[in-house]
């Protein structure tokens, strides 16, 4: 055991001496601009090997916020966009950046909170009413504030509740400007309510004594879409390989792969391709 690890280190040292060349010999790969929620939940680790085994195409996932993923894709830095912010996705296609958009799956958002439940919202299923109560009691609420899909969905709910969170920012409404995980780490640390996608929450490892406070509102459904980046706009896009991935995700096989991913016995994503 000890010898093997020593050899591993020695090999690491030797390899390190070589300049960084191409990392993988594999030439057939595509870059998917996606979101932290899909990555962190482990979904990609589950479905991508199935696709790669079948087609020989390696899928390289860049997991950032939806806002940044869309910007990166608009620069042509990716072949496929796989995110969850329907209006922004439709605008992306309308601008000619993407070929077309298809629904892939959904999961739902939940609002988690501390066991003390300072706003008294635990167990509610009406998200708008619950957010109104949080605003009225000025209980701390941690928002991602990073223009991500989750952030956009959250802002939509606040708007419906008629709460001007911009005015409260820095008070009880706290924008972390970070990804979902970082916001959960921060929010749980300050005893704030946090809206998160269920997938990230279930696989999150630092829950502490937090529980889901609000869930089950249809308004908190979180639709994912997939878009092939437009090769006419961005000639470097691997349209053929990218289309194969899109087709597979939308196929029965791909949809079943998504449905079969479970954490702690719970299904995280619900395929709904047309």
């Amino acid at each position: 055991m000890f010898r093997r690890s020593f050899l591993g280190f020695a090999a690491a040292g030797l390899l390190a001496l070589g300049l960084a060349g191409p990392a993988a010999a594999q030439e057939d790969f595509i870059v998917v601009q996606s979101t932290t929620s899909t990555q962190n939940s482990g979904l990609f680790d589950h479905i991508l090997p199935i696709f790669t085994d079948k087609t020989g195409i390696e899928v390289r996932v860049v997991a950032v916020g939806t806002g940044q993923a869309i910007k990166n894709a608009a620069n042509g830095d990716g072949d496929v966009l796989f995110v969850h912010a329907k209006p922004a996705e439709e605008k992306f296609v309308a601008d000619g950046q993407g070929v077309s958009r298809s629904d892939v799956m959904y999961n739902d958002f939940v609002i988690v909170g501390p066991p003390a439940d300072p706003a008294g919202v635990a167990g509610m299923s009406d998200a708008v009413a619950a957010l109104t109560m949080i605003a009225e009691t000025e209980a701390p609420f941690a928002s991602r504030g990073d223009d991500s899909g989750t952030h956009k969905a959250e802002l939509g709910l606040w708007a419906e509740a008629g709460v001007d969170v911009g005015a409260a920012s820095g008070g009880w409404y706290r924008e972390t400007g970070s990804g979902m995980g970082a916001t959960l780490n921060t929010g749980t640390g300050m005893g704030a309510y946090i809206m998160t996608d269920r997938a990230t929450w279930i696989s999150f490892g630092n829950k502490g004594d937090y529980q889901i406070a609000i869930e089950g509102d249809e308004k908190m459904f979180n639709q994912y879409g997939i878009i092939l980046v437009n090769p006419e706009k961005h000639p470097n896009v691997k349209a053929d390989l990218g289309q194969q991935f899109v087709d597979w995700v939308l196929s029965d096989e791909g949809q079943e792969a998504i449905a079969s991913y479970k954490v702690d016995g719970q299904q995280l994503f619900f395929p709904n391709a047309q």
Partner: protein
Amino acid sequence: MESFSAIMAEALGLILSGDPDVIEIIVLSLRVTLSAVAVACLIGFPLGATVGAFRFPLRAGVIVVMNTMMGLPPVVVGLLVYLMLSAAGPLGVLGLLYSPTAMVIAQTILVTPIVAALSRQVIEDLYNEYSEQFTSLGVGPLDRVLALLWDARYSLLTVALAGFGRAVAEVGAVIIVGGNINHVTRVMTTTIALETSKGNLQLALALGMILLTIAVIVNGLLMAIRGTAARAAYV
């Protein structure tokens, strides 16, 4: 939160298990960092030596710029390199974005000013000692730079080490230009960031301990080399 000893145990377990994913991440980290430091030294040593060994107009300005660039924010460097390498950017045709090479480029930009500025200081100090002797011997400009670089070799190792420390611990730039793609551009620091965002704080800390251990080993090796050199009064 787990105890410190539990984290240490997990770090040790991670290494001893020989998990190929962990080994891969460590190897890539070292490959990227050592490549960046090597390129940075290739540029920074001659640059620092030239500024340290000669007097020329605007020299003070050059030194101020070099010293200032030591504090370049990694995220800004990452963004600049991203804009250059993006398919929409001027160097997009090279197709280097989201590759280890892109990470090497970003880290090289971060580390080169450190290497140049610190080696400038080292070389200047040495040149103050040598300058009369060199003038007396009639040492030409090229010989001067080469001789100073060679005679400062053990001090320059420490300079390279400072660059290594900055590069190996850096996350802001490499996560932007590398994309933290599993099995392609995932290195120790980006893994730590990812595991932290997943809430796996213990795993993140264990990886941090491995990173620290590697830094200790590298520092120890250099200390041993310097010790040998010091006994020969070569430092």
